[in-house]
């Protein structure tokens, strides 16, 4: 956690600061360039010219240390699961996870016979927003990201948790 978080009593100043801080966090949520499968292509398409994630302030970072949002785009297999967890642990707080596509949500089409597929990434890391679809269209990913931004904006990072 950052050095200012959860240190202050609730008052008007911290409320304003809280607002500014969560505004900043939501506006500049940089995502982790991390594609697993089919959904990664749609993620790339979302970042590319037509949909352009930079519009909503999202920039790709390839080092987990510098990223805020991890978009789990694709099927998480058992061989990969420990690495996904490791990458999540390497990210700096505050960190958010978007589970993109049916595979990351629940195993998707591979859930029944997939002996090597993790049935949902939420079994190993906490997920903030689930984006359904196989693969989700860029529009739905953007919708998921905007939902995440809403969620971040409602946070009160500075005040002490009751």
């Amino acid at each position, binding site marked *: 956690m950052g050095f200012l978080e959860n240190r202050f009593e609730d008052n008007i100043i911290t409320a304003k600061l809280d607002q500014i801080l969560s505004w900043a966090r939501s506006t500049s949520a940089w995502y982790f360039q991390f594609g697993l499968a089919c959904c*990664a292509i749609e993620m790339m*398409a979302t970042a*590319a010219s037509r949909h352009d994630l930079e519009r909503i302030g999202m920039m790709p970072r390839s080092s987990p240390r510098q990223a805020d949002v991890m978009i789990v785009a694709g099927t998480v297999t058992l061989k990969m699961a420990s690495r996904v967890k490791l990458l999540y642990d390497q990210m700096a707080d505050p960190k958010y996870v978007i589970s993109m596509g049916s595979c990351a949500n629940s195993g998707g089409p591979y859930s029944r016979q997939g002996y090597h597929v993790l049935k949902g990434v939420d079994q190993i890391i906490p997920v903030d927003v689930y984006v359904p679809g196989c*693969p989700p269209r860029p529009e739905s990913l953007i919708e998921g990201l905007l939902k995440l931004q809403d969620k971040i904006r409602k946070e009160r990072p500075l005040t002490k948790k009751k």
Partner: protein
Amino acid sequence: MGLVHAEEMTLNIGPQHPSTHGVLRLKVKTDGEIISEITPVIGYLHRCFEKHCENLSYEQVIPFTDRCDYIAAMNNSFGYVLAVEKLMDIQVPERVEYIRVIMAEYNRIASHLLALGTFGLDVGAYTPFLYMFRDRERILDLFEITCGARLLYNYMWVGGVSHDLPLGFMEASYRFLDEFEKNINEYHNILSYNKIFIERSADVGIMPKDVAIDYGVTGPNLRGSGVKWDLRKDEPYSIYNRFKFDVPVGTGIMGSVGDCWDRYWVRAEEMQESIKIIRQALDKIPREGNVHEALPKKVRPPKGSIYFRTESPRGDLGYYIISDGTPTPLRVKMRSPAFTALSALSEIATGWMLSDVLVILGSLDIVLGEIDR
């Protein structure tokens, strides 16, 4: 001064790395920048495709073939349905044949665009990647008006296709092809003939002809090595024998035959050839016809097996299907071209620098979904 002690370092490229094109892990031994040994470790995306096939009916397998090679989903399901049709001896209507060829060639262009773009990204050029995505989006639009999906279509069915071409498809197609032909020159200007790009890719990662054949490397990678081998020409399936097109091969214009630039160039040229095929198909397609005419009541092939190959954007895509007469296949094996291409990596990339290895990997145009299945 004592002796300088040099030591090899083991480096793990991946499974998460910006230019491994998915979740591939390369275990490399490095001596400074020079790579002395490469061991690809795959399987991080092993989604049990073949196990699923043994438990699903023949039609239900089609979406899974889409998901194997998610960049060229049309081509993948095309190969599968052709194999099943051959096993069942189904004759599909003329219009369906043409629609399938048009879709497969469009998807080949889309796949090559992505391959070239990400190759540029590996070399460090970001802008061409976005330019190529811009045109790829327009192809996806055409798919979308046809079958409603952008990436994974489930469009090819056994005995037909899921939807007929919509109104306005032809006009949109012609318009797109005209504009796209011009855009190819733009790519050549910004990437292909860029001095730095040539320096980085020409004479790098040379794959000699005999090595390529010995490894079973096919498709643009083999043609880049100067072998004129294209299943569409040499073993025509569907109706490919009706079209006039060339098979571009690598000639070593910028370096030697079989280098990364040649593989890049073959893909760029193949887009031109695909445009030619699509134009001919659009001209010749029967205007009327029911695409659901030849759909079988139930897909239950007779006992037997078949190994059927088609030319996917990555090379010879083979399906080995064994039927035991029941509605579910006994075994479906996918012979994936990217798998064999990747197996040749350690042969051709050893001894190059770290940056080159990633460029060579990019030039092979692998899709991990297809390698791991």
